[in-house]
């Protein structure tokens, strides 16, 4: 049996979601929620019910939820939609540890004249609220930050950031793709204007996401066409995805506190086991402000790439940094920004667990990881890998 420890990349479908999808398939209804006929009305009712369920997960009103194609689209819509809707303000504040779906649209906007301020985190991956406040001015259109970081799990002190951002008159966007369903979120308390959530991180399929858009705020759409989703996302909605998302949100919300506590205990157990068998193992990220499900670990004297592949061959699925276009793994930009050296980042792996992880899996995975670490360290000493960065000749070919 394979052991899946990559929930931050995507969670398996929850059982409630599987049965909802099966029910939908069996019902065999052809309704377009925008259609006038009864089938359309049924579809619309299902869509709006899903919207309410998703809204409840984050303490929002149903009409504040815009369904999208996923977390990436939500982030793009939030950032480009807010920037375009902002008439005069030209500054955007973010951090260097954000997801590529935040960094890339901000690069796009920077190339079009926006001034993008990218704040650096501390060693634990936290962005100082004072640094956010100091970056604000009367020209600031938007602040975009991740509520919890995907790679190390660090949770930002966003409650302290909201009021100064509101006072500056800027829009506050939070990427909560990793946080939703894992920690309590009430958009009112966070004083954010936009908040991204993603279906497949909470046990719905990939291809559905949502953006919370505070009542009264209007974004320029990315998709233009029909008047769906309050004009902010044209196109016939992904009804099956939305239904699944609604069910997953409800399930995640209903069991959130017990589930988060259980998952955190399992992660602590894993860490203790590994710590006992791997001298020099290090946990990355602020341990007191962190998602309980995420362990980003630096394994001494081995290449993360070798560990990742060796573990996969043993049936344990983990992740490292991000995959390049060619499919190779690259050291995490988040770890590098937190001050880890390139070699440390290359020796780091992310283990992330979730609703289906069992204590037995943790036991077995901890044993396999320790065994694989010993084998990799003995067979492929780091000294034989030419570490650091590509040499001058390789650089010259770029």
């Amino acid at each position: 049996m394979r052991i899946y420890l990559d929930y931050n990349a995507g969670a398996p479908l929850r059982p409630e979601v599987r049965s909802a999808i099966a029910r939908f398939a069996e019902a065999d209804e052809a309704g377009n929620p925008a259609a006038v006929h009864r089938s359309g009305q049924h579809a619309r009712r299902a869509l709006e019910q899903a919207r309410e369920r998703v809204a409840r997960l984050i303490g929002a009103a149903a009409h504040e939820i815009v369904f999208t194609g996923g977390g990436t689209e939500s982030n793009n819509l939030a950032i480009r939609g807010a920037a375009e809707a902002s008439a005069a303000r030209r500054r955007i504040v973010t951090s260097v540890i954000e997801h590529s779906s935040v960094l890339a649209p901000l690069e796009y906007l920077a190339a079009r004249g926006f001034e993008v301020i990218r704040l650096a985190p501390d060693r634990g991956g936290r962005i100082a609220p004072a640094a956010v406040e100091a970056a604000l001015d009367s020209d600031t259109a938007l602040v975009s930050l991740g509520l919890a970081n995907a790679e190390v799990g660090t949770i930002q002190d966003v409650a302290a950031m909201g009021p100064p951002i509101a006072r500056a008159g800027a829009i506050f966007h939070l990427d909560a793709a990793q946080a939703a369903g894992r920690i309590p979120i009430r958009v009112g308390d966070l004083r954010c204007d936009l908040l991204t959530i993603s279906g497949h991180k909470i046990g719905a399929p990939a291809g559905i996401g949502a953006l919370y858009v505070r009542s009264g705020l209007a974004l320029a759409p990315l998709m233009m066409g029909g008047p769906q989703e309050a004009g902010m996302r044209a196109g016939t909605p992904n009804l099956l995805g939305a239904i699944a998302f609604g069910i997953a949100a409800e399930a995640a919300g209903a069991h959130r506190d017990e589930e988060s506590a259980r998952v955190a205990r399992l992660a602590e157990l894993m860490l203790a086991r590994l710590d006992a068998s791997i001298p020099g193992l290090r946990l990355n990220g602020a341990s007191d402000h962190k998602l309980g499900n995420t362990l980003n670990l630096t394994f001494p004297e081995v290449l993360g790439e070798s560990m990742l592949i060796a573990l996969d061959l043993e049936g344990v699925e983990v992740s490292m940094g991000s995959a390049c276009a060619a499919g190779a793994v690259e050291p995490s930009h988040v770890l590098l920004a937190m001050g880890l050296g390139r070699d440390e980042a290359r020796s780091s792996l992310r283990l992330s667990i979730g609703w289906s992880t069992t204590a037995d899996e943790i036991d077995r995975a901890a044993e396999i990881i320790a065994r694989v670490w010993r084998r990799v360290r003995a067979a492929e000493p780091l000294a034989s890998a030419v570490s650091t960065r590509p040499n001058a000749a390789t650089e010259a070919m770029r």
Partner: protein
Amino acid sequence: MSARVLVAMSGGVDSSVAAAILRERGYDVVGVAMRLAAEAPAPAARRRGTCCSHEDFEDARRVAERMDFPFYVVDLRAEFGARVIDNFVSEYLDGRTPNPCVMCNREIKFARLSERAAALGADYVATGHYARIERNPRGRFRLLRAADATKDQSYFLFTLGQTELSRTLFPLGAMTKAEVRARARELGLANADKPESQEICFVPDGDYARFVERAAPRQRLRPGNIVDAKGCTLAAHGGVHRFTVGQRRGLGLSSPEPLYVREIRAESGDVVVGPRDGLTAAGLVARDVSLVDPESVVEGAIAVEARIRYRHPALPATLAIEAGDRARVTFESGGGPAVTPGQACVFYRGDEVLGGGFIERAL
């Protein structure tokens, strides 16, 4: 449990069929594509599939999907840069003509990748090379030419010793290229008719001189003069790295008879040219000599066939191993073709590779 084998896959038909054959034979195949050099950004029009990836890696990935074995891309750019590309550049700057494929086999495929194989719990490394490995009755490993003489790649593999050969599989050694392509079609591999790559992988345009000029610090380049045997200057040139011994084309000289590069003097920058008959050498001295099986080569002079370039036929010669990993090779016929310092000289006895070294100088 079946033996695990790490198969180095380039996306070409040879390594794909090698992997597929091993899979069919019941090995626990793990495919890897090595990221060796910074990829040139693919033109948008040539991108295909779901991601903006390196096409060759995608070809390999598709084979792995079709044959149902795991596949990974491994990043060996730093190692390849330090051990193959840097060597390639500095050899050219020193007036020699390197063979990066030999270095890649020695330093990367059968060294770094072999370590990686052990880290991944694999017993063997396999490649799509055309060469054969046999075990003699005493349990020693022998490296042999491929059955397909036109594809034989044993020349590039002379650095492999007993340890390496004991952990290496060459599934294509007994096959012809036509058989490999036919097998690929039978297996439904999409790259069955993919053309072969001819150039050195990290210099896809084949312009080595320009590559060296971009990679080397400016002060390392050695411009100088093209001179004749008497030392008279015929022309100036932009760097000794632009020449190889035996070269005729591209010298930019007008002369009643064709002139060839006879010698490159990196210290002074002189490139000595002369007519064809001055090119032949009585033999050569090789350095960094390695033997496939040290037990198989006796002391003193032995008769071998020496191959001094990949596409050249092996010439009858006498081999004398000397101290300090050096060897002296004397051609039987009294004179061999252009001996090019930096190239590999590989010693054969019939089909068997005894070993080889890198040419230091002609005799």
